């Protein structure tokens, strides 16, 4: 899951980036409205966090610009002024949720998680597919109730595939959503992650949770269970 953080205060931006990266999100950041408008309109993101009070171009205008460019990713706005006129204007501009500064990182994480899940059409923070359970709040994966240790990038890959379970995800899309822009797209590191995931989730090769769709990409193949 790739998140764009737009915040002009360098300290808060650093905190946001490190907080979110620590939870296995791929985070890109910028501190300027015009740049944000460009980034969000040109690249694929799964979510954006936008501070309303930006220099140059206001956060509201950035959001309006993205929505005008048909960008549908969920947007969380950060506002220092807590009055309702502000909140309503932000939501009317196209944001999906708001958070009043100052806030706790846990609160932000909860909102981000909820927005990402909602965008993918999942109501519950836990997703269970047969023996495999993904907990998007704890950022952990369980097979038959016992936790499987995954690296951050392995988790990211699996989460993206599971959230879009049943859909074939191309390598390009995975790369786009999991790595930074400057990532070397030709490397075969993705295949390595998938192979390792298969080994960790399905050491006996009975489940086959991740299917390779030849020439197209990967698909998470298990059926969701209630």
């Amino acid at each position, binding site marked *: 899951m790739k998140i764009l953080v737009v915040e002009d205060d360098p300290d808060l931006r650093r905190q946001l980036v490190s907080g979110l990266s620590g939870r296995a999100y791929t985070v890109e950041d910028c501190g300027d409205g015009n740049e944000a408008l460009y980034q969000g309109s040109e690249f694929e993101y799964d979510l954006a966090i936008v501070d309303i009070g930006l220099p140059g171009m206001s956060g509201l205008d950035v959001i309006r610009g993205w929505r005008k460019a048909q960008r549908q990713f969920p947007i969380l706005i950060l506002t220092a*002024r*807590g*009055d*309702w*006129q502000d*909140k*309503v204007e932000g*939501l*009317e501009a196209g*944001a*999906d*949720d*708001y958070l*009043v500064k*100052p806030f706790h990182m846990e609160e932000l994480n909860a909102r981000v998680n*909820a927005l990402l*899940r*909602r965008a993918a059409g999942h*109501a519950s923070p836990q997703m269970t597919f047969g023996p495999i359970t993904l907990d998007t709040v704890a950022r952990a994966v369980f097979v038959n109730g016992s936790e499987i240790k995954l690296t951050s990038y392995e988790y990211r890959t699996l989460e993206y595939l599971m959230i879009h379970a049943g859909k074939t995800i191309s390598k390009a899309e995975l790369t786009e959503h999991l790595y930074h822009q400057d990532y070397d797209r030709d490397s075969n590191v993705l295949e390595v992650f998938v192979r390792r995931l298969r080994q960790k989730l399905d050491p006996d090769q009975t489940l086959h949770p991740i299917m390779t769709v030849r020439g197209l990409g990967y698909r998470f193949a298990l059926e969701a269970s209630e």
Partner: protein
Amino acid sequence: MLWKPLNKFFSGINWVPGSLQTRLLWASIVLLPILIIFAGAALQNAYESSLLASERSQAQLQTYGILGSADLVEGELVLPRRLQEPRFSQVQSGLSGLVFDAQGLLRWRSESSALLEEQLVMQVSTFQPEPGSSRFQHLKDQGFYLYVYPLVWEIDEKEFRYTIAIVSSDATAMEELLAFQRQLWGWLLAVYLLALLLQFLILRWGLKPLDDLADDLSMIERGEAEKLEGVYPYEVERITKNLNRLIESERSQRERYRNTLGDLAHSLKTPLAVIRGAGEEKHSLSSYKRLVDEQSDRMTQIVQYQLSRAVKSKEQAMTGASSLLLSVDRIVNALSRVYAAKEIDVEREGLNHFFAGDERDLMEMLGNLIENAFKYCDHHVRLSATQEQQWLEIVIENDGQSISTEEHQVVIERGARLDTSRPGQGIGLAVVTDIVSSYNGGIEISQSELGGAQIRLRLPAGDE
């Protein structure tokens, strides 16, 4: 209409000066001459026609003079050499009489006609008007008035037709006309200048209150006065009244900001002191972290509370009515995005009313209350309103968990000091209570028939 191109025309010219007085004067300088030229032309016309009429009646009289002296002897018209009118006998008198018969042959001419050009005489002989209709003409090129009178004489059932022509010089009349014109335009010019002068004086006098207003305003600017105190005419008074109200509300707003700032600084000092004190005590890292967390929460709440108090406007006189429906729609639409996952059914009833107060205040109250309803409901939120005379009652209900009666009290306790409240407690309701009481309204919390809390707001109703 006409104004648009005119305004456009004037706005395109940058020599049109900015002063109201000069603008009006310029308009008069340009437009008055048009008026005056029209009036002058009309007067001149009227004078000319009256001059013509008098010439005609004089010529008519001369005709009667000739007729009186004429005799018909054996079918022949006979006139004496000299007539009663002496000018007919003087060569340079400018008045001549001519008599033609039905064939246009000259039968008689006065002695004075000796100097008339033969061509003119020939020309006159061709005029043969119908009996009973005379003809009067100004021959400008030749400088004459010509009056032609057809005459029918009946003797022994025989008809004798003659034409009498009076030719009179227009020199005197033209001189008179010229003198009149000179006088007329001279006077009109004087009227023009006088009108401009008068207008200048009227404008000076009429616009003086505006000058006074500007002076008074700069006195306020310099701090020598607190409000506009002069006596102003009715039209300006409406402006000064509003200005005074604005100045007053601005001042009270400033005062409120100052108070808020004072309160804010004061109430922030306590948590700051706690943090500083804790730094000097021996705390473990985790307990120190918890303490800083608590105190920063407390400071956040204080800041938020004081800010929303400062934004809230207390000047109800200046604000109009705010539409309840509009605010509810905006908030519900916005919150529906946030709570999209919850699939909340929002029931709205009778919301088409107006609140006599600031829209920001209304948004603040409704925002906090409706968000609480969204947050605590299961699936159902009901918003309804009724108006009874001067009061608007807004009810916000949800089907979530009910709250106990003690909690009702805590929640709406008026003037509860927030810097003494427990951390983590929301300030939304306290802000609502504060705004409600500033409008002398009321708030009541009870159990809704839907199952959750029911909040009843009583606020002054406004007309659209």
